[in-house]
């Protein structure tokens, strides 16, 4: 592999400047991505520890470890932290921020200062949410359903303020990415030569931009309801609490696509690079991201089958929910077809691709089960739902995100983690994940309701399996964090292109220089034109005139 030696003195973005201020006030998309990485990791640990306490409480059928009110606060915080502080920002703000301009061959995003503002706004929103935690916490569930959320005491308004502020961060990131993809693609990079991660981030950004403001107005109205009694959600004044559910899910269902679409993009990259095969069905995958974003914005009513909405509306929402499975299945089949006759390398990212495919299949198919009207009436608010969305959100979004970190880690830090340990740990993650969440399908289908701190004794053994699984899952993830951090600091130095990738981020040094590329890279072909040719490797690590 030919390394670029023509600019030996140029420091990487990590060493270009020093001091805490050079990080906190940087406009470099790579440093902002790393700061998001640190923040989301800390919040993920917080949310994970809360989940650990929840599982400990559920180890026995009796409510013995914490009381009911504390339990309500714990699951509320776990949900709010994991949704608003971890899964929504993780993939777009960490991997998207770092990789998107590099993949485009750009020097930065279109609005670097706005990008920094997004990060600061994110931290402000996180602070508000965590202040509410210190002030006694709120117990509404992360969904803030009225009328409970308008009548319960506790610092609900603080948490709502946090969600409002976090929404702005998300909107501005989405806006930035859309403009960057439109305006800053390298010469030769047509829309259909873009890496599929960019298509996925484009669809994600569109949802962030168009759905998040509806959440903003919703939480704003909820704050008004709590403070001055505006009446919109209050039946005593003529308002309708169900309207809150419509508003909330109009954002929060598309929000699950904010979480999962970047994961789809990450998987598309990894499956092709680590099988050294052209991606199967490029246009199908690219356009299915957009159609998921569009159709996925029209299915919010499937959260409300038991809320008393019109049965005709429910039928339409149920049908549309089934329909989302079509573009999603196009992606899954395309990934599997890509693997066919590929040179499958059992590298850690590929291990996470397998993990993702298995877990997401289970999560996705049980989603179709829940989308069926008659079944949902039975399964609504049971652990079946809890299991389903953990398979999709964690088994899908978080697993793909962790896999993506393994894929781009050598690019981000210029060093490699211990690969064998990583592959082995990924198996532990897979097994312990299933041990944690599969029993929830079983107890849920037998009628165990969610959000209770005690349950009938016949569910106890399955819950104990789940709790042991959760402990193992937590340990496996701590091992993952440990070797990743070790690798970033002490790991062996990584080459510019350790996986033989063809997209532009592999054509600059690892870690990249502050301005990403020497000169303007250009694109002659698609990002998945495998098998790799010697001429492709010639250009690796360069970006300077040959």
């Amino acid at each position, binding site marked *: 592999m030919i390394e670029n030696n023509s600019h030996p003195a140029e420091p990487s973005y990590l060493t270009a400047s020093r001091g805490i201020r050079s990080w906190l006030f940087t406009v470099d998309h790579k440093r902002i991505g790393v700061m998001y990485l640190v923040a989301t990791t800390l919040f993920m640990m917080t949310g994970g520890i809360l989940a650990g306490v929840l599982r400990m409480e559920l180890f026995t059928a009796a409510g013995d470890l914490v009381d009911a009110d504390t339990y309500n606060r714990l699951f509320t915080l776990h949900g709010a932290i994991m949704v608003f502080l971890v899964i929504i920002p993780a993939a777009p703000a960490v991997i998207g921020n770092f990789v998107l301009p590099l993949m485009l061959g750009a020097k930065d995003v279109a609005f670097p200062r706005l990008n920094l503002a997004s990060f600061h706004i994110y931290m402000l929103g996180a602070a508000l949410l965590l202040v509410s935690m210190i002030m006694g916490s709120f117990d509404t569930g992360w969904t803030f359903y009225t009328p409970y959320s308008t009548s319960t005491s506790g610092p609900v308004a603080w948490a709502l303020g946090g969600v409002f502020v976090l929404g702005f961060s998300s909107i501005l990131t989405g*806006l930035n990415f859309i403009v960057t993809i439109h305006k800053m693609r390298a010469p030769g990079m047509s829309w259909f030569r873009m890496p599929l991660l960019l298509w996925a981030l484009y669809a994600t950004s569109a949802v962030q931009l*168009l759905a998040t403001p509806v959440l903003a107005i919703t939480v704003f109205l909820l704050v*008004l309801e709590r403070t001055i009694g*505006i*009446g*919109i959600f209050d039946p005593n004044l003529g308002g309708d609490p169900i309207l809150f559910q419509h508003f909330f899910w109009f954002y929060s269902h598309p929000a699950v696509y904010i979480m999962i679409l970047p994961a789809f993009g990450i998987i598309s990259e990894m499956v092709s690079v680590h099988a050294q095969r052209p991606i199967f069905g490029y246009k199908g995958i690219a356009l299915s991201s957009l159609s998921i974003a569009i159709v996925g914005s029209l299915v919010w009513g499937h959260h409300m089958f038991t809320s008393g909405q019109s049965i005709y509306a429910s039928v339409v929402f149920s049908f549309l929910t089934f329909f989302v499975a079509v573009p999603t299945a196009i992606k899954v089949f395309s990934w599997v077809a890509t693997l066919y006759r590929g040179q499958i390398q059992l590298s850690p990212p590929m291990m996470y691709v397998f993990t993702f495919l298995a877990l997401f299949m289970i999560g996705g198919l049980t989603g179709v089960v829940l989308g069926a009207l008659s079944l949902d009436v039975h399964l609504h608010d049971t652990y079946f739902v809890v299991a389903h969305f953990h398979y999709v959100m964690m088994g899908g979004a978080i697993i793909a995100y962790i896999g993506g970190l393994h894929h781009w880690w050598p690019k981000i830090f210029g060093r490699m983690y211990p690969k064998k340990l990583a592959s082995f740990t990924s198996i532990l993650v897979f097994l312990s994940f299933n041990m944690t969440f599969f029993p929830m399908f079983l107890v849920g289908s037998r009628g165990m309701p969610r959000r209770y701190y005690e349950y009938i004794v016949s569910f106890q053994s399955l819950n104990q399996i789940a709790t042991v699984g959760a402990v193992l899952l937590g340990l496996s993830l701590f091992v993952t964090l440990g070797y990743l951090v070790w690798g970033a600091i002490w790991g062996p130095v990584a080459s510019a292109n350790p996986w033989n990738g063809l997209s532009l981020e592999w054509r600059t040094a690892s870690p990249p220089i502050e301005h990403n590329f020497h000169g303007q890279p*250009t694109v002659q072909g698609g990002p998945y034109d495998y098998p790799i040719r010697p001429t492709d490797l010639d250009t690796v690590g360069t970006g300077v005139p040959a």
Partner: protein
Amino acid sequence: MNTTAPQPERPAWVAPFFHSREQQLSSANLGMWLFIGQEILFFSGLFMAYIAYRWMYPDTWLSAADALDKSLGTLNTVVLLTSSLTMVFAVRALQMDRPKESIRYLVATIGFGIVFLGVKSVEYAHKFEEGILPGLRYSADSVEGMAGLFFGIYFALTGLHAVHVIIGLGLLAWLAFKIHHGTVNHDNHALAENIGLYWHLVDLVWIFLFPMLYLVR
């Protein structure tokens, strides 16, 4: 590997990560249009609430609209529409390299904005005196049915709109300052266009609010 085509002339205000003036200007423009898109969705929640409850309580909506001061509402509509006109003149003057004229038009726009807020606060004060307050605090008896709900939506919509007007006034003043110092000029005019777009958005929202709240039949 590289494009070695001669670069077009590159003014100093173009940021290093853009390769041309046009790229920077069109990026700023697209960004503003996307921002306007999300603003419309932000207001859409309240519009939907309005539609849903108008459907449920049509009589309340009719009599509540009669309780609003149609002449002051009309006056404010004229004021805000005129301010959009002066805004267009301001941007046009800047593009024609007449910064002083542009600043004069901006000052006029700010003036109309202040008049709008003044009229609005007179309206609010009248309502407060009559006990017409949002939701729970509604204590007048002039409107039948779910009047508190209507005025909850009325104050939320017009209040949010007024917040946008106030932000707009700040942006206009900042723009006038920048034009005065020449950092925004006939060449680098993206900021003027974008603030103009924002001001038109504020105007547009009012164009919907006025018939919905005041003229509904």
